[in-house]
């Protein structure tokens, strides 16, 4: 399995741990990923919100680079990049005027031939839980985990969804394969305020609190995410979100690649767990408890 990897700006900075753990997990599973040469920012929501042509062209430029490098599948980990690349690609494929516009701006003949894929999709649908299961060495037994998909991986359904848009399950299945216990909760696809993270912190904090308290109500020990914005809003802003309401304990918010990495036996530092604001110590303890037993079996 070979993919061109589009890390995107956040994986280079605020989400370097996501970058690190994605690369580590792919390596451990034998998924070959190579960075899109000279990739540029996808424009993210600012381009989308202020200049439709730009939000079409920047993804097209990147996808064309991947195509030129000989790839037909581009892998992203950041859900926002995924959504932007996919939305632009969808428009380019479906709508000839959009296609022509994109080609005029980037001055390249890109016509939508490349597939944009998210790491969850790859792990769940291409690689498959059965294969992953074979490689699990230290299952996180009994760890109660809420999967949080957010909105970017679910909507619009026709463009981005690779799972049930209202009740997605793929991350829960991966959690299960990691030996942990996926917990059903109602906010799987609720919005965390993603793009408002910097400009409207009060809104993001309110939404963060809602999500965290619901996760707590569901009795989870950890939230797993697949989007750098979600992680930022729930982990980095967790203290702020709970400021006025001290009724919920700290809940670590980890990337699915970090959780899976642990179960695959990858050392925590190779997964960037030290970047978390809310310590993942509780998860590590859980792993330690089962490590010996699992190690014997392996």
């Amino acid at each position, binding site marked *: 399995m070979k993919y061109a990897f589009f890390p995107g700006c956040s994986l280079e900075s605020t989400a370097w741990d996501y970058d690190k753990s994605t690369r580590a997990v792919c390596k451990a599973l034998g998924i070959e990923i190579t960075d899109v040469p*000279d990739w540029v920012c996808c*424009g993210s929501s600012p381009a989308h919100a202020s200049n439709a042509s730009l939000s079409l062209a920047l993804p097209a430029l990147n996808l064309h680079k991947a195509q030129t490098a000989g790839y037909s599948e581009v892998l992203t980990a950041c859900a926002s990049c995924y959504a932007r690349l996919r939305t632009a690609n969808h428009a380019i494929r479906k709508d000839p005027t959009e296609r022509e516009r994109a080609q005029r701006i980037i001055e390249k003949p890109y016509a939508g031939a490349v597939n944009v894929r998210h790491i969850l999709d790859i792990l769940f649908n291409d690689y498959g839980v059965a294969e992953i299961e074979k490689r699990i060495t230290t299952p996180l037994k009994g760890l109660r985990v809420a999967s949080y998909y957010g909105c970017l991986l679910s909507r619009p359904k026709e463009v981005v969804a690779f799972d049930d848009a209202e009740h997605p399950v793929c991350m829960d299945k991966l959690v299960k394969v990691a030996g942990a216990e996926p917990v059903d909760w109602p906010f799987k696809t609720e919005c965390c305020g993603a793009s408002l993270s910097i400009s409207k912190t*009060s809104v993001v904090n309110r939404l963060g609190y809602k999500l965290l308290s619901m996760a707590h109500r569901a009795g989870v020990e950890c939230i797993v995410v697949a989007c750098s914005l979600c992680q930022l809003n729930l982990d980095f802003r967790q203290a702020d979100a709970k400021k006025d309401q001290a009724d919920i304990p700290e809940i670590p918010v980890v990337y699915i690649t970090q959780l899976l990495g642990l179960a695959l036996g990858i050392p925590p530092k190779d997964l960037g767990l030290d970047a978390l604001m809310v310590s993942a110590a509780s998860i590590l303890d859980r792993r330690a408890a089962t490590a010996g037993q699992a190690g014997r079996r392996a």
Partner: protein
Amino acid sequence: MNDTLEWTDNALLREVERRSGASVSACFQCHKCSSGCPIAPDMDLLSSQIMRLIHLGEKETVLESEAIWACASCEACTARCPMGIDIAAVMDTLRMMAVERKAALGDRRTSSFNKAFLSSVRWHGRVFELGMMTLYKLISRDLFSDVDKVPRMLAKHKLTFLPHFSRSTKEVRLVFNRAEEEEKKR
């Protein structure tokens, strides 16, 4: 918003429909969008009310509203509207129309952030977070929010003092220029 509204004509409705590609006129005021919007508690007008105001041609009220800037583009509304109206796209369109109009915005923070973000991309090819944040704060005059976070982010290596550069910066600048040209053509 005035206390008494006046139904002028369908001009605003038709403009928004043309630019967003969404059939706003089909809206039958079921309020499903408003009831599912995660940001609704922080909005001065709810999405279904915005649809109604568009019907009524209340251009100023809509474009001055804070709500269009509060929208997080989560598309919960679009995904579930029984009339298949892309409400999120309408919000995008309204934001663009509000910026074009060059009058005071209902909320400048989001648009400032967008400006800062894109200028970072324009010059580096990728986002340089620290620089972008500084720029954002200058434009938005929202100087103090989040300043406490910067040291922590630096400590966790989430922010760096040096920008990342793509090797395609020149190409990117050209793309920006051409995209702006394209937008004007619309």
